[in-house]
């Protein structure tokens, strides 16, 4: 079974803090994704990566950066957290670019 894990289920941070969200997959997948999910807005793609050290902007990259130093790990970074970044963050991975995505359990981030 593919397993995608995220470092925290719940996280509370203060405005201006630097926040790291970690995602690890154990199936040697090439592609990894970060989404945020907000009520009424569905899932929106922040960034994705199709290889180590490679990244592509999604639909809403502003205020975020990512890092993929190892194939199994994809990190989402909020350089200076703001209250409008309070959301559920979901990580996913897939073996090829347009194939089935496997999601982690999500991190609910609250920025105060």
């Amino acid at each position, binding site marked *: 079974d593919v397993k995608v894990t995220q470092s925290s289920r719940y996280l509370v941070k203060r405005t201006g803090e630097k926040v790291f969200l970690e995602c690890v997959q154990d199936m040697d997948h090439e*592609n990894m*994704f970060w*989404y945020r999910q907000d009520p*009424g*807005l*569905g*899932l*929106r*793609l922040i960034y*994705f990566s*199709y290889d180590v050290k490679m990244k*592509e902007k*999604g*639909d809403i990259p502003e205020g975020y950066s990512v890092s993929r130093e190892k194939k199994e790990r994809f990190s989402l970074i909020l350089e200076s957290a703001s209250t409008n970044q309070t959301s559920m963050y*979901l990580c*996913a991975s897939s073996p090829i*670019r*347009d*194939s*089935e*995505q*496997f*999601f*982690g*359990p*999500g991190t609910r981030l609250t920025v105060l």
Partner: protein
Amino acid sequence: GQQVMQIPQYQHVQEGEDFTTYCNSSTTLSNIQWYKQRPGGHPVFLIQLVKSGEVKKQKRLTFQFGEAKKNSSLHITATQTTDVGTYFCVRATNAGKSTFGDGTTLTVKP
């Protein structure tokens, strides 16, 4: 960006009734994926459709891909309480970018 529009946003049914959600795109889709997210859970892949006019079935679920590859539907026959959740259609490209529809949230009254 290129969007996929999904309707309805919410659907409330009595257990045993049928349910359908529709997904529409203004551009031709190379494929369409469907996911289900249970309340409090994460999206789980259901199926991928690739061919024009394709119809696939999974027990009580029937998935269709339009002839023009611009629309898709998911139909559930005789809903059960276990069908509760939000159903998403997803446009995925070989460039890697995925676009989720806004989802249809299904509630089932026993």
